[in-house]
């Protein structure tokens, strides 16, 4: 027998506090969890999509960079593909332009019209854009091409969202 005998009153105190504590915790924990949930929410693995384009292989000539991403429509996931025109400008900075014509949404091509070399050309209605994506006045488009945000990860180009200028 130990010398510190636990009295009946002490024993009841301990057990009741213990059990009560568990019950209180059981109620409070979910509440706290709900309260802080927005902070813990995963950010959707950023919005940048990886491409196969190596950063140091980008030249001053616009090249087509294709990428694929998964698009979720409710419960249906499909693989969508997209394209960007990527090049380095005179200052050596990377420019990634959306290929979607600002007129009615056709896909523009670099340097495909013989009478307008070194321009982005839209085959649908003859829209023209300069190399920096600015629309040539007098052709149907009324706005410059959208620009992708991008970042470099392990030497590869990651594309974000295309934003209008």
């Amino acid at each position, binding site marked *: 027998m130990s010398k510190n005998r636990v009295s009946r009153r002490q024993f009841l105190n301990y057990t009741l506090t213990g059990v009560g504590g568990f019950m209180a915790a059981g109620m409070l924990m979910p509440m706290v969890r709900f309260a802080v949930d927005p902070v813990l929410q995963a950010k959707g693995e950023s919005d940048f999509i990886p491409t196969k384009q190596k950063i140091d292989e980008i030249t001053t000539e616009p090249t087509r960079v294709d990428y694929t991403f998964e698009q979720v429509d409710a419960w249906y996931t499909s693989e969508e*593909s997209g394209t960007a025109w990527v090049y380095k400008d005179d200052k050596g900075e990377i420019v990634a332009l959306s290929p979607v014509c600002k007129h009615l949404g056709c896909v523009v091509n670099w340097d495909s019209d013989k009478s307008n070399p070194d321009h982005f050309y839209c*085959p649908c*209605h003859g829209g023209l854009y300069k190399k920096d994506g600015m629309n040539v006045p007098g052709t149907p488009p009324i706005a410059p091409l959208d620009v992708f945000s991008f970042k470099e990860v392990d030497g590869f180009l990651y594309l974000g969202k295309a934003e209008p200028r």
Partner: protein
Amino acid sequence: MKWNTQDIQLFIKEKEYIDTVVIPLLPVSFGEDIKQTVAMTEFISLLSGQLEKQFKGRLLMLPGISYLKSVTEDKLIADVQQWEDELNSQGFKHIFYITSDSDWKTVEEKLNGSLIWMPSIPLETMDDQYKNSILEDQVKQLLNLFVKKWQNND
């Protein structure tokens, strides 16, 4: 433009720029060639999706005409000519048909529109990424065809 409510709103607004319609011709059969017709229909549906993406601003992609392989040729041609009359009266300048069914090739001259015949590719064994790149290649080849047709009539 796709045949959906969102795109059609834009179509109504910008009608003068959209002078081209594309009609996929999709065969349906329940006989021995059921598998072939399914493959053709699937391939053309995917291809027309990519094609629409490329030329969104100038063509209207109609929901395809699906037809029974058992129906006689004359009736099919009459049906398609009816479409042509309607589309011409609506002011469309260029009509394209896109199909994998080679039977159309033999009656091509009876149609006013241009017939594009693409042999169907067995897509069922490919993964999505490969499938997409093949379709994009096909569309690139069609690009010139469309551009030339547009230039000749402009």
